[in-house]
């Protein structure tokens, strides 16, 4: 089961993974965007870590703190998008202090809905949605088949990875990469990689015993 401790570990691990992949994310953005996705996400998540509420905070409190940090520190497209995602996840978590596997799935579903409302992208437009949507579907699918949360999150991560890979041959129709037309082909969408990292953090920290490398 997922409590505030796991959510906190998830947030820490996401921040850690973004920091580790900061240059890679920025390099991807340099190829088809404006060379700031890694810097943006890192700035936002570092701010989130500073603002995380202490003992007694609910999962929703923690997720909302991340949302507000991302909205008020990132700027760019990814700030409002991930910010809205965390805000919707917080709303879905409500006042619960522990989350069942189905709650976790609902939370990611709400996050995806937030991203799509804010950004108006569907899959195939070469954005983070291409990783996020299949990941949420895999998570729900696996849980529906009776798998444990750990296994389901692992499947979500793999789906996110595949989804991110699927952006490589695409032409973009949303975000900055859309300005490039055909020239965007052959490059991975940077936002789809940060989404992979989000699901990696989730798989490592929210999946119970399976989450071996849960945050420091």
């Amino acid at each position, binding site marked *: 089961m997922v409590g505030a401790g796991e959510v906190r570990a998830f947030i820490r691990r996401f921040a850690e993974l973004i920091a580790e992949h900061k240059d890679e994310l920025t390099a991807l953005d340099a190829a088809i965007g404006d060379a*700031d996705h890694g810097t943006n996400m890192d700035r936002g998540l570092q701010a989130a870590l500073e603002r995380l509420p202490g003992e007694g905070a609910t999962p929703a409190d923690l997720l909302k703190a991340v949302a507000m940090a991302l909205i008020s520190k*990132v700027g*760019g497209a*990814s700030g*409002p*998008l991930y910010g809205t995602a965390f805000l919707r996840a917080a709303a879905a978590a409500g006042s619960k202090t522990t989350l069942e596997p189905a709650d976790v799935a609902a939370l990611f579903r709400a996050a995806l809905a937030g991203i799509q409302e804010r950004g108006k992208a569907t899959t195939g437009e070469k954005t983070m949605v291409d990783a996020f949507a299949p990941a949420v579907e895999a998570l729900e699918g696996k849980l529906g088949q009776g798998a444990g949360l750990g296994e389901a999150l692992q499947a979500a991560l793999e789906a996110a990875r595949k989804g991110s890979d699927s952006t490589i041959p695409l032409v973009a129709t949303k975000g900055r990469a859309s300005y*490039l037309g055909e020239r965007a082909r052959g490059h991975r969408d940077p936002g789809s990689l940060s989404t992979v990292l989000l699901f990696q953090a989730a798989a490592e920290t929210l999946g119970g015993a399976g989450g071996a490398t849960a945050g420091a």
Partner: protein
Amino acid sequence: MKKLINRVEAVVDEATEGMGLAHPDLVRVNREPRFVARADAPVQGKVALISGGGSGHEPLHGGYVGRGMLDAACPGEVFTSPVPDQMVEAAKAVHGGAGVLFIVKNYTGDVMNFELAAELLQAEGIEVRSVLVADDVAVENSLYTAGRRGVGGTVFVEKIAGAAAEAGASLDEVERIARKVSENSRSMGMALTSCTVPAKGSPTFELAEDEMEIGIGIHGEPGRERMKLRSADEITEMLAGPVIEDLGLKAGEQVIAMVNGMGGTPLMELYIVYRKLAGILQQRGIQVARNLVGNYITSLEMQGCSITLLRADEELIRLWDAPVHTPALRWGV
């Protein structure tokens, strides 16, 4: 990376602070959240014009704060749109009770952050409208893209809508003017060299010694096409042609024309481009009513230029000629 900076993280704060120190009679700099406001704001009863966007395009937007232009500018990190907090606090600081107009360059990030800010301000009872600038003809229409980028036309929208607001026009009227300018502006740009985002530390793209990018934006994005370097006259034709076509300019019409440097281009070269542009327009019977030649909306130290044309009528020219007194644009005062 070779830049006159101290720490990478402090670039925008220090530059904004420096601008405040250089122009204390014109602007006031707020640090947390970061915005640049007119020194005499709020001007009671006046529609407040607020713009903003990623930094690195100086003098846009901070350099256009002052009498007859913007009431506030919200500088984001380099090439990254500002966050909603900035627009919210700026609006609270400068609105004079007659409503707020956001002038937003059409980029996904800018649009979403200004949208969030507008939602928050409406919730506090401040009336906010937004006008998008989307003038870059290098980008296909929004069926295939996030929509055209806002580039050079932004300078025209800020100047002309600013003059309307200064003259006491209502929010409806200022919005109408801003839209009119936005809809009648088109731009296209090119790069001879890339630029280096301080936080990244190396050039965003690489261009060979004999190559150029046509159809670039203002964020060091690669353009639509890479090609062999051409002469200034040929380049001017490649930029001006699509702009004139897309605007559907006819003989007998008037324009306000801008030849804009991307930050690292000598003025001499911009005048060489203007020379050809003037020739092209004259040949088509299009009259240049007013013009700007210089660095008005830049991409850090990029070498290159853009051409912007605004279809002008008597109303727009009258507002263009109205006094303006900002760090970067000044006349009639």
